[in-house]
């Protein structure tokens, strides 16, 4: 069913391969003297982290904001993605005059550990073998991703971040920052996220992983060496995941039962419906830019995420004594990370006496709302960062353009 359009240009494939080791963004390389320790046990070295920066660091290095990207995002938050040629994924939030104002803040965004755009991940070359890691890379966690980011931030000469901001898996990293390095984070903005993956969250991810691994082109994870790519499996994984990013209502408003390029049902298994065609397109464009093994690693990292687990299962204990200021946002129609999970975080922060702002934003566009043009979201983040900047004694974002 997904056959024809799945042919990938060789240029695109080789571009993706080269970005894994030699990204066209900035990259910080760590040698055997600076191994990255992992929750799974072993440390990896040498390793590298790819990142982008925007704006300028002030003299006392107090205006840095780290942005953490979601599951399949990348470091190009406000710059063109070298593989897709598309603009940055959060230009509504980040840029000159935006809530995360690059005229005022020094903004850092790095590719996550386990990713495929220049930070060490399964598509990177394993220094021990000279071949791609594949599944030889230890499974990574959200805390590992954050540990890697902390080494980057230290390497940039920054002791304390003004803010860590992220949505979805990025929000998990932002919360993890406040737990792993409480003294290094002045404020946290966690959007459309949770403190742990639910059984349903894990279930959807497992469907995706099984789809990838069931593709014969996956080759037990060694497809890069075999010159193959489990595109069908990865496309199906993306299709299933994409449904969870939208609400029933937004899907129905957008597509209804509308037919695709035809006037009547075809009585076959082609894409009769617009929603089918749309999902296939989402799956097909995804495989051009993303590595299948990376997908296994990043979904696993979120599945393993459970902030309370290390604190006797009591979330309130996680944030005990924190001085960080928090802003937690959820969306009414987000059923992937519903408001109740954000509320649990807020309750825990209240119990810990932390300064916290929380808003549930009206939106019928599901989990993806955090990436979309929802003005309320930007107004709130701008307001929160303005208040936090005042407390930190630095310049806040520009006032909202009228």
């Amino acid at each position, binding site marked *: 069913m997904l056959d024809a359009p799945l042919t990938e240009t060789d240029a695109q494939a080789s571009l993706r391969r080269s970005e894994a080791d030699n990204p066209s963004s900035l990259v910080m390389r760590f040698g055997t003297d600076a191994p990255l320790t992992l929750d799974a046990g072993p440390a990896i070295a040498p390793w590298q982290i790819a990142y982008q920066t925007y704006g300028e660091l002030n003299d006392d290095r107090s205006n840095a904001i780290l942005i953490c990207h979601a599951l399949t995002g990348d470091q190009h938050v406000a710059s063109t993605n070298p593989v897709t040629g598309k603009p940055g994924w959060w230009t509504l939030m980040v840029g000159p005059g935006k809530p995360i104002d690059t005229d005022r803040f020094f903004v850092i965004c790095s590719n996550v550990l386990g990713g495929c755009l220049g930070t060490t991940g399964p598509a990177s070359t394993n220094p021990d073998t000279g071949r791609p890691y594949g599944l030889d890379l230890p499974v990574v966690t959200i805390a590992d991703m954050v540990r890697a980011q902390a080494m980057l931030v230290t390497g940039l000469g920054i002791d304390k971040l003004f803010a860590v901001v992220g949505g979805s898996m990025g929000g998990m990293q932002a919360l993890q920052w406040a737990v792993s390095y409480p003294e290094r984070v002045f404020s946290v903005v966690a959007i459309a996220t949770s403190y742990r993956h639910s059984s349903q969250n894990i279930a959807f991810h497992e469907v995706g992983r099984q789809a990838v691994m069931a593709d014969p082109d996956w080759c037990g994870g060694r497809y890069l060496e075999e010159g193959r790519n489990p595109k069908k499996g990865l496309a199906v994984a993306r299709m299933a995941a994409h449904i969870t990013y939208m609400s029933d209502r937004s899907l129905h408003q957008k597509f209804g039962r509308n037919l695709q390029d035809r006037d009547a049902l075809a009585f076959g298994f082609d894409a009769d419906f617009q929603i089918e065609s749309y999902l296939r397109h989402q799956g097909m464009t995804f495989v051009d830019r993303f590595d299948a093994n990376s997908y296994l690693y990043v979904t696993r990292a979120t599945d393993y995420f459970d902030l309370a687990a290390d604190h006797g299962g009591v979330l309130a204990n996680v944030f005990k004594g924190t001085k960080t200021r928090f802003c937690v946002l959820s969306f009414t129609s987000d059923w992937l990370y519903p408001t109740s999970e954000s509320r649990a975080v807020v309750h825990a922060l209240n119990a810990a006496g932390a300064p916290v*702002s929380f*808003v549930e934003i009206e939106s019928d566009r599901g989990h993806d709302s955090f990436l979309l043009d929802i003005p309320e979201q930007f107004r709130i983040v701008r*307001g929160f960062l303005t*208040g936090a900047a005042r407390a930190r004694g630095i310049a806040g974002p520009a006032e909202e353009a009228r």
Partner: protein
Amino acid sequence: MTDLADLTSDVRIDLKLIAGLIEPGSRVLDIGCGDGALLELLERTRGVDARGIEISQDGVNAAVSRGLSVIQGDADSDLVQYPDQSFDYVVLSHTIQATRNARRVLDEMLRIGRRVVVSLPNFGHLDVRFRLMFLGRMPVSKRLPYSWYDTPNIHFCTIRDFVELAKDVGAHVDQAIVLDGTGKRLPFSLPWIVWNLLGAQAVFLLSREDR
């Protein structure tokens, strides 16, 4: 005669009075903080560590956009999450009449805060009595346009009613300020019965020797 609604919506006097009761630099939780006007006043003029709870989406959005630490929540259900004595002051400004279980809310406030500030419109005010007695209608005005059947203010009380409730939950009235219809303070020397008749709104500072 100034009617009750005009007085109860006279927020400025109310907020200034409350701000005057708060020690600078303390920790304050404002329950039903609206758009955060009091919190901002306290943060700016008293240097307090200010937090708020507000039930309306518009209120929370406005407050957070002002840079305040405010969460969307419900006084009736969300106070249990706060630890004992975690604030120096817990404030309930013109909100007690909108709670479902006013007694429990007050009890929770006294648990969470070392001191509690409550301001309320006095339903025992002369004007209200006048309307009930001679017009036979619940008071409604332009500035507080709620009819009895759609008002969020489900538990109006008088100054004396509130003092009784405070006693009932074991609270001590450390200070009481009563304003007349023009916003002027009524003298201390007046007996409760006069306050209850002429007071349009009241601000109480309470505390409780906690168990």
